[in-house]
């Protein structure tokens, strides 16, 4: 088995000076390209043992004395590879701010209040066809110290595993129509506008629950994999 080359011109570059923290945290030397070995072409798998159905419901998984405040939404989609094949039973983890843009993190000092009934993290295993779904509150925009007046668009952070450690991916999902997307140095670090579009979840009315919550659809594509052909690899597939 081998993975398709990651297209590093499609991903954001390590050094994106308008995103100031990247200046001192980006390598200056070229990366060393290696053929994947078993060390990179295998990866952790997760069973249902450690994960409960409640973990994927952010409206309920930290509720103490009521529901969290904010716009109730479903975020759902599929995890696919570049061949369009589903990545079954892979772990998807998300985290986000609350409706006011405040994170439940001891390092977040934004003046917007914590929601006592909202934790802001969830995790699910995709099903056999790669489908995943969360129920949550739409996060608010929040300010950050980059330029003096920088505001992150509403976003949900996602972490996905796939089947190989070299497929490991963390990204952010944005919401259709958010005018802050065009102004965000983290988003705009991505050079190709088509790649930015791939991070914007459309409103999905078909999956909304009438009189209950709206829905957004977000498909995730991981690196493609193929069996090795015409290559003399003693370690096999």
């Amino acid at each position: 088995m081998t993975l398709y080359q990651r297209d590093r011109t499609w991903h954001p570059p390590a050094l994106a000076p308008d995103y100031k923290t990247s200046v001192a945290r980006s390598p200056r030397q070229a990366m060393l390209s290696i053929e994947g070995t078993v060390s990179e072409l295998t990866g952790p798998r997760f069973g249902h043992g450690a994960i409960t159905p409640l973990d994927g419901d952010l409206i309920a998984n930290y509720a103490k004395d009521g529901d969290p405040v904010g716009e109730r939404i479903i975020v759902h989609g599929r995890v696919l590879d570049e061949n369009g094949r589903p990545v079954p039973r892979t772990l998807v983890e998300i985290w986000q701010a609350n409706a006011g843009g405040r994170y439940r993190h001891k390092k977040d000092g934004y003046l917007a209040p914590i929601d006592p009934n909202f934790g802001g993290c969830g995790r699910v295993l995709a099903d056999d066809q790669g489908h995943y779904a969360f129920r949550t509150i739409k996060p608010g925009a929040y300010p950050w110290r980059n330029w003096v007046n920088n505001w992150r668009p509403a976003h949900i952070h996602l972490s996905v595993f796939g089947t190989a450690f070299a497929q490991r991916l963390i990204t952010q999902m944005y919401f259709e129509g958010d005018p802050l997307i065009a102004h965000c140095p983290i988003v705009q670090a991505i050079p190709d506008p088509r790649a930015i579009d791939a991070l914007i979840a459309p409103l999905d009315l078909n999956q909304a629950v009438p009189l209950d919550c709206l829905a957004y659809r977000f498909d995730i594509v991981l690196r493609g994999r193929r069996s090795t052909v015409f290559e003399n690899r003693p370690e096999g597939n």
Partner: protein
Amino acid sequence: MPQPLNYLKETPSQTAGPYVHIGLAPRAAGFDIYDTELGFDAMPDDVPGPRIRVTGCVFDGMGATVRDVLIEVWQADAAGLYPDQPGAAAGFRHWARVVPDFDTGQFTLDTVLPGAVLGPQGRMQAPHLSLWLVARGINTGLQTRMYFADQDNAADPVLSLIEQPHRRDTLIARGADGHYHFDIHLQGDKETVFLDV
């Protein structure tokens, strides 16, 4: 027009940001939500192999510690085997998450010493940990490896690909006999070799 190649494009990466712990290590973020936090569960006592402890720090280009980094570790068991390979150690996760102390920036990893792993063309790879780093300011997670100073690294097929010999040392943890120290430098004179796998 030739036939189209209808491959999808990989979802673009984005930084994990400063609050990655909320999603991947909520206790470190300051709250308790899951019965089991993945990647931090203790290793069962019956996993075979010598126990090791790795400590270290991640540094930015100015030499300051990166205190909001999250590191994932993927490794073979003591026999050099990964899950699903015949004979792989039962009960060993092979995978861990590491978060440094927010005040000092130092991280600690407790695991077993991996064995040598079969590599390309039947060559053996020296014992190593595969590491993946995400943090604020890192747009795409960085892959690297950690080797051990007291193991035989001379014939390792990955280390030998590094053109400048002194840069190979950036992947070798100092120490011996189960206690190792490994610093990762994101940038600068001591910059760690990162991998495009």
